[in-house]
């Protein structure tokens, strides 16, 4: 007679159906949508070759022309950069013909540490194998290949057998098409024309430890450890520009590098976030702010840039990565949302910690 004793006659089948649906959802979630979206196993016998190449940058002085090509290959846009490497001082980079305006990157323990973490990421993400010898512009090179879990090629390196210098590398899209390539030509060993008098630059000095990153997250800063399954945080730094704190987070899979700059605030109204689905793009090199962000752009040399505002923060992404990976990185960050009711509710839920 009590209400407790009364039960719906359909509760049994409904419960079974709910459990079945839950199982299906869990199985679906547990199944990777792509066979390549998992770390690749392998002997990684190519890693010693790449570690030698990283060490050679700090030991061998040389000058060369670095040619950067995008997905269109040598037939497309090619950026040629004069490279002068002087161990102990750093590396000078300047577009051909503009050597007086070289960007000097000073040698630092921070960069050496970053290189080591990038190599770890490469080993963790891909199967790195020694693919034998090859001839590259008349120089004998050892070829190292990075393969995804499904066996497709993600990257290829050419390491000079004599000096250990990295002569070239190519990063491939998931489709197998080359995304961008870097190749050294006109290699000359020995100290070249070093831009004397230039102070040079180093990474921002305030490296964020794990504790500091956690404190930032507690303060509402979006600083994820992963952007995608293979884009992991390998470095985080902070500085103050115009009185505002800016956090630079570097994400990488070992082959590509994505920089995410985050600062509190919102864009000026002239950079209306209502345009183009709320995104605002930047011109390459940081000049101008064209209206766009549902598409990121650049790409001729494998570099992509994008800027937008979301939930009280302004994001700027600069990526040396395949287009698909760069887009995934942008998508993984908070989107600008909209001005509608549900967009505001979603934003509020995120601020309240429910999302």
């Amino acid at each position, binding site marked *: 007679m009590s209400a407790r004793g009364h039960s719906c006659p359909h509760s049994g089948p409904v419960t079974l159906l709910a459990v079945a649906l839950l199982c299906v959802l869990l199985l679906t979630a547990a199944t990777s949508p792509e066979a390549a979206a998992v770390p690749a196993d392998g002997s990684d016998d190519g890693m010693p070759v790449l570690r030698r190449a990283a060490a050679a940058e700090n030991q061998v002085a040389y000058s060369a022309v670095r040619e950067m090509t995008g997905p269109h290959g040598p037939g497309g846009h090619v950026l040629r950069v004069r490279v002068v490497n002087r161990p102990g001082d750093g590396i000078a*980079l300047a577009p051909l013909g503009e050597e007086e305006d070289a960007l000097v*990157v000073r040698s630092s323990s921070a960069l050496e540490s970053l290189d080591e973490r990038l190599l770890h990421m490469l080993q963790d993400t891909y199967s790195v194998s020694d693919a034998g010898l090859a001839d590259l512009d008349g120089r004998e090179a050892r070829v190292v290949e990075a393969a995804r879990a499904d066996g497709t090629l993600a990257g290829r390196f050419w390491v000079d057998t004599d000096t250990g210098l990295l002569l070239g590398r190519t990063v491939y899209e998931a489709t197998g098409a080359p995304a961008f390539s870097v190749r050294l030509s006109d290699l000359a060993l020995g100290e070249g024309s070093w831009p004397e008098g230039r102070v040079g*630059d180093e990474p921002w000095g305030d490296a964020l430890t794990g504790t500091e990153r956690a404190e930032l997250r507690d303060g509402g800063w979006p600083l994820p450890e992963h952007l995608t399954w293979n884009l992991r945080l390998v470095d985080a730094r902070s500085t103050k520009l115009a009185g505002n704190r800016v956090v630079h987070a570097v994400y990488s899979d070992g082959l590509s*590098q994505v*920089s995410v700059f985050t600062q509190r605030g919102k864009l000026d109204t002239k950079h209306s976030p209502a345009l183009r689905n709320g995104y605002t*793009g930047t011109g390459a*090199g940081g000049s101008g702010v064209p209206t766009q962000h549902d*598409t990121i752009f650049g790409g001729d040399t494998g570099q992509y840039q994008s800027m937008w505002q979301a939930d009280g923060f302004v994001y700027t992404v600069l990526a040396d990565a395949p287009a698909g990976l760069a887009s995934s990185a942008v998508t993984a960050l908070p989107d600008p949302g909209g001005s509608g009711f549900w967009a505001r509710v979603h934003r509020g839920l995120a601020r309240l910690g429910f999302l």
Partner: protein
Amino acid sequence: MSSEHLGERLSALVDGELGPAEHESALIHLARCESCRFEADLMRRLKRRLHGLCEPEPDADFMGRLAGLSRDPATAGRGPTEPPPGGAGFGAGPPLGLSRPLGGFPGGHHPASAPPESGAAPHRPQRAARPERHRPERLAHLLPAFPGGRYAVAGFAVASVLIGSAFVAGGDTEETPVVQPRLSDYAVEHAVTSRHLPVAHPQPKATELPYGTTEANR
């Protein structure tokens, strides 16, 4: 049968408790006695009411008589439309037989739910407000086919509060400063950590945006 009125036998007659002979004599008496006949009729109606039978509304004459009994000297000075002080008096509540009997109505149905007869009781008083303790019964009557109805209502209330709070929290904060990202500094920092020069000139040109050929659709 004597000329005496039926008295208590009238009640037994209505209840069908008389023997065949007494029943016959009682009927004969009723045929001759208008007073007993009226009283028997009244008792039958009352009995039907009490048993919750679908009996039409009492006639106006009967109701008028009952209402006349309720007029006492304390309320005689008021107008006919003025309610008595301190709540409803006799006649303001449900008519006799329409109130809730002890133990509830059979089958949970209230006889007042039957459609009223038009013009049957022009001076029929308004029913008093139903006591609060009847409401759960009414809800249970409304939600018999959905046992989780109460939980659904509670869930809906919680969701409404949550959405409202999120809407308020999702508003623009006035203290958010307008910033202009130092893109050139970002480009240098990125170039330092990647040791790659950024593209010297914007690609594509701003005039080609947003759907230039060099875009990479997300």
